[in-house]
């Protein structure tokens, strides 16, 4: 059944059960959020998405309030703006403001909303408890001095990965994200998938591997398929100055059909072999047991000459090729074509069994 409501003077029709946030967005309103995540259970806790239903005493969090027939909603009433500004100021009061060196600079909700609502500083600055977690793991930086306690990391850990490594400990202002007994991630069930980084709306969680190499917001992102196991996860290679500087993921199932943004430790943090100084950059020819650099022409001519020689001397079936489960379909196709058509043998295989 459809219901009708008025949002910022515009009438919208939505199915019963629609949350206000979706109705508001349908009406074109830009609703700011921290804790809301369409892939995770609702929290309704950051209170950034509050809107004003006409005739109600309080503001409501639009992410957890079902739209009702006949509701009249203002999404940017003076009360709403005041509440959002205060929420931002309260977050800012405990936030380590190091935007200039922050990995999330440019795609940080806190930064964006402070800009949007003109919040330059907080009136509520007082005592600051440092919550930075010095965690020796090589993958995930846990700078809870930037945490806004949206708990998306906890929910992603539970509801996407299922590692259930982290939770909220203590309560009130002292509540923070922690593993059991507030230890290090390596001593918890954490599998370093980095889904927590993916959902973090601020700079509290970031990749140590990518740190300092390029802010994700400024990187070019190239959607591709992971090079590791056979699951076929889609990931985004972050590129800066023709160099891979990180991996992020796209959560849209239309672009990430298998994994919907979720990755594993290898996919998210195992990319920097690309830049390894040990990469081969030139053909090598072995002479007297030692490799020397060679030109492509020299190497390929020599290879062709050797292969031809064996083929002529012992027949095509004295040659064998191992193609690869890591190269593309197109390359595998050409490899077997080379073996079959150019050399004339079916001795082609790859490591499917290993």
């Amino acid at each position, binding site marked *: 059944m459809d219901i009708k409501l008025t949002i910022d003077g515009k009438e919208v029709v939505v199915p019963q059960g629609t949350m206000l946030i979706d109705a508001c967005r349908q009406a074109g309103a830009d609703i700011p959020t921290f804790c809301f995540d369409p892939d995770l259970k609702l929290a309704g*806790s950051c209170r950034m998405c509050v809107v004003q239903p006409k005739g109600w005493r309080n503001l409501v969090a639009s992410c957890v309030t079902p739209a009702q027939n006949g509701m009249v909603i203002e999404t940017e009433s003076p009360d709403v703006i005041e509440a959002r500004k205060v929420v931002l100021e309260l977050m800012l009061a405990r936030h380590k403001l190091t935007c200039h060196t922050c990995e999330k600079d440019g795609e940080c909700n806190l930064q964006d909303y402070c800009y949007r609502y003109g919040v330059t500083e907080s009136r509520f600055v007082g005592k600051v408890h440092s919550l930075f977690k010095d965690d020796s793991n090589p993958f995930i930086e846990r700078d809870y001095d930037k945490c806004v306690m949206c708990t998306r990391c906890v929910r992603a850990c539970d509801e996407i990965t299922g590692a259930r490594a982290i939770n909220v400990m203590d309560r009130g202002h002292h509540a923070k994200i922690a593993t059991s007994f507030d230890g290090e991630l390596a001593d918890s069930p954490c599998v370093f998938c980095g889904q927590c980084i993916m959902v973090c709306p601020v700079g509290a969680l970031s990749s140590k591997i990518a740190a300092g190499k390029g802010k994700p917001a400024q990187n070019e992102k190239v959607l591709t398929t992971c090079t590791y196991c056979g699951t076929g996860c889609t990931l985004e290679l972050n590129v800066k100055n023709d160099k891979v500087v990180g991996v992020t993921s796209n959560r849209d199932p239309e672009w990430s059909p298998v994994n919907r943004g979720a990755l594993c430790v290898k996919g998210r943090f195992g990319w920097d072999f690309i830049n390894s100084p040990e990469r081969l950059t030139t053909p090598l020819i072995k002479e007297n047991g030692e490799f020397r650099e060679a030109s492509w022409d020299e190497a390929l001519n020599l290879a062709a000459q050797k292969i031809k020689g064996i083929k002529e001397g012992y027949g095509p079936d004295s040659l064998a090729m191992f193609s690869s489960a890591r190269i593309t379909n197109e390359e595998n196709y050409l490899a077997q074509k080379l073996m079959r058509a150019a050399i004339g043998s079916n001795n082609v295989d790859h490591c499917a069994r290993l």
Partner: protein
Amino acid sequence: MAQEYRVLLEYADKINPEKASDYIKVGGYKGLEKARSMNPKDLIEEVKKSGLRGRGGAGFNAGMKWSFVPQYPETKYVVCNLDEGEPGTYKDRIICQKNAQALLEGMAICGYAIGSKQGYIYCRGEYPFVVELLKNAIGNAKESGALGEFDIEVRMGAGAYVCGEETALIESIEGHRGEPRFKPPFPGVEGLWRMPTVVNNVETFACLPYILTNGAEWFAGIGAKSYPGTKVLTLTGDIENATYFEVPTDYLLRDVIYELGGGVKGGKKLKAVQVGGTSGAFIPPQNLDTPIDFDSMSAIGAALGSGAVFVMDETRDIVDIVNRIAKFFEHESCGQCTPCREGTFRCKEIMEKINNGRGSLQDIENLKLLARVMMKASLCGLGQAAPIPITSTLTHFEYEYLRKLV
């Protein structure tokens, strides 16, 4: 002269609260018997007609609350809120210690009305002896057959004021952090273990046997029309008789203090009274001639709440007390939503600053702004009510703040 009117506490100290037989001797379990002779729908109507409203914070009509519970699924729960954490409040403890069987009977009546066979009593961790008492009382009642098929289990809280909020309480029974849920869904539809659940407090349940036994009209005729019945009050602070009383709900606040309470301690003058626990408004002496019922208290910007009456004499430092209260909320905020988690902490900071003579007018403005947003935008009642002591004292006792500023 106004007097106590004891319904729930009529047989206080005359019967053993653990013993169903004692209770039956004074007319107990008749209400349940009558309830069970009725159609559940009619029973809910009867409770509605009595006008009984929740004796907790929201004052919601009990029968109405029950009527929201759907017929299916079959598994439903009756939950008793015995997590009275409002400082200065101990009336539910008294009701249990004096008349526990009435609570059990009330829960069973509710169980019959909504079709639930399982009740839970969530007792605050500060009352281990009440847990023991209740367990014995339940055992005795079950043995006597008085409860029939209705079972009650006692669960103990562990020191969290926020668990007095019904959905936080449910979370706690489920073994979770006591973080309130967003609503809807309301517990009546999706409560304990996501099943329909009625949550009422001890006093509300304990009224039910008397309503059923004596009739809805009888109950509706006691005290204030819009909030009938009696209310157990606990008097604390600078009061001669620091004890509990049960009074009809049209009783005047002045009489609570000066008649039953015996006046301000040491014959001093009254400066303020805070009703309903720590989240209540501070009431100045000029408003004392207000009846204690829910709506009358609301009309003067206060709340009956838990029925705690905290009396402050003329020598008391309001800012110091509010500072203390701000610390209470900072300690008890669950930490889920931003306005409450950060707001209670900053309120406490600013109150401390003012109380220590370091505050400025700007701090008072900031306090007001913070209070406004917390009240409008917090997820649950705790954050919404936490600023009330601040706003009410800024309204009635602003000079106390101003004289402490730099």
